[in-house]
């Protein structure tokens, strides 16, 4: 696409969704690329154009818009949310007795994936290294949890029932059966916030009378890069704001079909002089399926694109930390990375 006067703005600011592919994807506004534009980094210009709008926020998920930032930085935040914000999760499982039908390693794997409600900012990383000598871990880097449950026959069950809920006691092991065992001064430090699994109703194993589980778990601090159990988000993703422009007036039955091509609520038909005319009401709701480009009479009427610097983030937390705290921590992680290399540069220059 040649950069003529009219479409320079479009090349700079929009991603074009075409019939056979998506074009204009990369950021091109670097100094020297466009004559007449000063694209050098300007802090004031960035701060003026940058804004964040929180659309939805509750204790488990949030949706917010970040406008005026480049994809490289927005993607860095997304990657850090998924893989580099630390949390606490079960790492070592000491199985004293497991007579259930679930194998030891499968059980240990399942226990590791249970999210543990403990603020990871109050704990330190465990020094890997001398393992056998200090296998217990200290109060500053380990949480100890215990799961001790035995299934038995219910003496009060009626003779001819076949419902396991009536026949057996403790035959389903849920995460609510995991108890916190405070070590050292943890009982005082964490007196008010109960440490344990986030959700009570995660089914871990099923037992029958005579089977028991006697397990001690050590939880440590880790990041998602190491193992996905440490990831604090159910998922974190972003999409770019869609932009739909109608190039000509569409009315009547054609407008009806145009409305069907987009997600509900994107296009509305308004009554002008008796005929229904299509109008773009809310392009944010569109999922950009490009369905309209499959119809030969509708594809030239519409221009589909995305705004390149408007990111709609969706962060769903697993419940360990609230989603706004997670985003804050992710931004701090990126700052810490920059600081680490700045310190390195300074120390090598000093030598």
């Amino acid at each position, binding site marked *: 696409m040649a950069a003529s006067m009219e479409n320079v703005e479009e090349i700079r600011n929009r991603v074009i969704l075409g019939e056979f592919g998506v074009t204009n994807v990369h950021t091109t506004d670097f100094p020297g690329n466009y004559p007449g534009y000063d694209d050098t980094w300007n802090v004031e210009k960035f701060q003026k154009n940058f804004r964040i709008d929180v659309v939805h926020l509750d204790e488990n998920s949030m949706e917010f818009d970040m406008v005026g930032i480049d994809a*490289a930085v927005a993607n860095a935040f997304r*990657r850090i949310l998924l893989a580099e914000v630390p949390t606490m999760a079960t790492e070592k499982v000491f199985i004293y007795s497991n007579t259930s039908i679930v194998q030891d390693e499968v059980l240990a794997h399942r226990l590791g994936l249970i999210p543990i409600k403990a603020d990871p900012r109050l704990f330190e990383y465990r020094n890997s290294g001398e393992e056998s000598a200090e296998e217990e871990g200290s109060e500053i880097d380990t949480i100890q949890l215990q799961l001790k449950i035995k299934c038995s026959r219910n003496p009060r069950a009626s003779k001819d029932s076949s419902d396991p809920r009536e026949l057996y006691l403790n035959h389903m092991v849920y995460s609510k059966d995991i108890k916190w065992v405070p070590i050292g001064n943890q009982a005082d430090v964490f007196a008010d916030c109960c440490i344990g699994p986030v959700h009570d109703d995660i089914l871990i194993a099923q037992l029958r009378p005579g089977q028991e589980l006697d397990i001690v778990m050590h939880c440590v601090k880790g990041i998602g890069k190491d193992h996905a159990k440490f990831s604090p988000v159910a998922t974190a993703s972003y999409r770019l704001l869609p932009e739909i422009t109608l190039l000509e007036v569409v009315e009547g039955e054609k407008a009806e079909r145009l409305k069907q091509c987009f997600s509900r609520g994107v296009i509305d038909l308004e009554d002008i002089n008796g005929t229904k005319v299509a109008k773009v009401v809310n392009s944010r709701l569109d999922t950009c399926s490009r369905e309209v480009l499959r119809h030969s009479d509708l594809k030239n009427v519409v221009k589909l694109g995305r705004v390149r610097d408007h990111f709609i983030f969706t962060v769903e937390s697993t419940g360990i930390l609230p989603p706004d705290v997670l985003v804050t921590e992710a931004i701090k992680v990126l700052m810490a990375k920059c600081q680490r290399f700045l310190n390195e540069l300074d120390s090598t220059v000093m030598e």
Partner: protein
Amino acid sequence: MAGEGEKKAVLEMVQADGADEGCVTFVLHDEDHTLGNSLRYMIMKNADVEFCGYTITHPSESKINFRIQTRGGIPAAEPLRRGLNELSDVCQHVLNTFQARVNEFKERQEQPME
């Protein structure tokens, strides 16, 4: 110039013999696209930089080769330092704006309930 010898190196500089200080490849250890791409963007926005790119040499090793070539004889460590500072400032501004907006949103949510 290289990083510390006794513990794991974090940042190394590799320079071709005879080339001036403006063309340097930095090896950043324990990094990937997260810092690499965002840092590349910030450094490319600098008008003194003629070339800036990064590559992950092998996906099994977590290190990136970050190359900077400057024009005008400027030592390459300077745009790197400036890019890191600017990225850090961007993060700080994003953090401040985000926290302010979240608090505003929470207050607005409190009001209908009162």
